[in-house]
């Protein structure tokens, strides 16, 4: 785990016990925020591609968006928003030392993540069955803009899906550590950071959703 407690090495002058905990937390948070910037830029570069191609092939993009199933998109958006609530609730619960509520929150968030991925599986599966996937004849021979739209659709939602999987792994680790009392109100930086990561994944989706499903 990147940000687990034992990672920290405090200078000799700061080793007094009352200082240790607090310094730990702020530094780990800073590190996590820096990492989140890099994630934003990672997706940002893809959004730049989207912006350029959208400007060039606006009509094709609108036509492409009509082929996506908005119901799936809306359901997945709601699911992710709910999952973020679960994560936030579990962090508050840990701070108040309500272990059971924290575990329930994390379990709920993991469940939401799972449903999101299942939905994604059916959505992609349906598109692939229709012959819409990178390199498919329908796209290669069809309008250039639609090829780009669906190309970006697969790349961006694929990368986002990968982030969901990573986020779920982090939440699972947190769940085990909460269960083992390794994450408590005195030592909650790891959970905090996993929560931040999950919120970022959620936030990225909030941008992906309108760009692909609502540009009609």
């Amino acid at each position, binding site marked *: 785990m990147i940000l687990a407690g034992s990672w920290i090495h405090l200078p*000799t002058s700061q080793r007094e016990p009352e200082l240790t905990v607090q310094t730990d937390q702020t530094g780990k948070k800073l590190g996590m925020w820096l990492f989140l910037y*890099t994630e934003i830029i990672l997706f940002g570069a893809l959004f730049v591609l989207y912006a350029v191609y959208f400007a060039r092939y606006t009509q094709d993009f609108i036509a492409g968006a009509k082929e996506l199933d908005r119901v799936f998109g809306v359901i997945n958006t709601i699911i992710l928003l709910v999952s973020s609530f679960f994560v936030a609730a579990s962090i508050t619960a840990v701070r108040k030392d309500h272990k059971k509520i924290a575990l329930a929150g994390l379990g709920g968030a993991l469940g939401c993540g799972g449903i999101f991925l299942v939905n994604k599986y059916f959505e992609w599966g349906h598109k692939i069955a229709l012959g819409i996937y*990178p*390199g498919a004849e329908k796209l290669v021979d069809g309008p250039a803009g639609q090829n780009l739209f669906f190309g970006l659709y697969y790349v961006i939602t694929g990368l986002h899906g990968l982030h969901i999987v990573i986020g779920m792994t982090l939440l699972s680790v947190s769940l085990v550590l909460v269960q083992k009392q390794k994450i408590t109100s005195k030592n909650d930086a790891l959970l905090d950071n996993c929560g931040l990561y999950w919120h970022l994944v959620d936030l990225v989706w909030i941008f992906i959703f309108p760009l692909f499903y609502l540009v009609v």
Partner: protein
Amino acid sequence: MEVVKSFFETPEPARFTGIWSWLFTLDHKRIGLMYLYAIMFWFLVAVLLGGILRLELMFPGETVLSADLYNSAFTLHGVIMIFLFIIPALPAVFGNFFLPIHIGTDDVYFPKLNLLSWYLYMAGGVVAIFSLFSDGFADTGWTFYVPFSISTNTNVSTAVFAAFILGFSSMLTGLNFITTVHKMRDKAMGWLQIPLFTWSLYATAWVQLLATPVVTITLVLVMMERFFNVGLFDPARGGDPILYQHLFWMYSHPAVYIMILPGMGVISEIIPVFARKSIFGYKAIVASSLAIAIAGSLVWAHHMYTSGMSDTAVFVFSLLTFVVAIPSAIKVFSWVATLYKGAIQMTPPLFLSLCFIYLFSVGGLTGLVLGAAGANIHVHDTHFVVAHFHFTMFGGTGFAFFAALHYWWPKMFGRMYDFTKAYIAAILVTGGFMFHYVPMFILGLQGMPRRYYDYLPQYAGGNFFAGFGALFMILGIGLMMANLFASLRKKRDMESNPWGGVTLEWTIPSPPPLHNFVQKPKIMVYPYDFSGIVDTPANKSEGA
């Protein structure tokens, strides 16, 4: 001085011994040295590759390399030098070793993340080697331009994947350094009391953090195109290859500042110590580091004047390119002004720093020739670019790396190298360097393109001389390394402050103990106050 065990004798964590005490170490100094050995290895490999390339070019026609092999060899030379040597050289080796000491603390904030970065670096190197033995190394040049990088049959995916992993290593090191500077700095050290090398690392770390993700995703897209044929950069299917170039240079131009900023930091440390004089314009140097980090992120498209992008873009990027020259010039003037009326003591690190100033200035000024949109059309993609790039990156960062090695060697290993051999090596490298790259400027102006294994007969003379220069340069590098490593056979008896430096690393034993500071460090009001330095051991022994 009381006898303290150095970090060589005290593993961290203490339960590991032998090789494991290195492979699992959390000590920033050991990690720095592990980077040093790996980086030196790659550097020498890439130097030899470069030598073979110049050997091929010494005589017209095919001599030692076929055209295909030449393409792979210059790609490999570029990929190793950029991703495995210049980007990590100064931050990963000297940054790791000295940043925590400079700010009066005993390690970086995330020691395990630091070790992970080293493993990622090694993994990137292993992947690069692996790609050599399957389908041949990429022949695209280190820039992996589409559409060729997508259509060529060589193993681009593996080479790109290696760069991808190395990007993570660099990014995590940056993240670690920023957090360390913010959270671990001695309470008594304000922002304007931080040594300039650490300041430059801090500015670099931001660029690493903000620019690297762009290349990460760009490289992922190249892999996607190769595996899934998405067509995002394929003009036949609506894609735009110029967008690839934008995304690539959006990282890779800031990356040259990732390479040079720490080098400038090293020079800012060395010059005042051997001029026995406070650095001229401390605040201006700090501000110019940050200005370079910011302005340098806005000039990427000056690599693309001939790509067919709009004239407005060419104009804007040309203007911004001229702007970014200003902070670099501020630094050069500050170093020269520091030397003015100083009590100069000549030593190998200072000698190499002076070579740096000269070579880097030439590199910087020829950069303006390339930055001017009109002149650029004439010299675009010629050997002029090769010469300019090597003057800034090798004459700049490379020489800063040599200077840093000679400056901090006694601190890191507790032993001093032979001065005479160090001077001879430095003169050989610098002389060979001039002989090697100056002809390339001329060849470029005459119109010799880069990246071909052969050339027209009128370019034979310049290429022949350049090859000779390369030979002297490689001999010099060999002698320099041999001289440094030969010192390791000596007894470890170096005092804590052989040069008369005033930053915190010179207040602690050489080599430093595990936790760096035996007593609580005393932070000076101003980090370059030499009023307390009267005479130094190096002064006495060398009789300078």
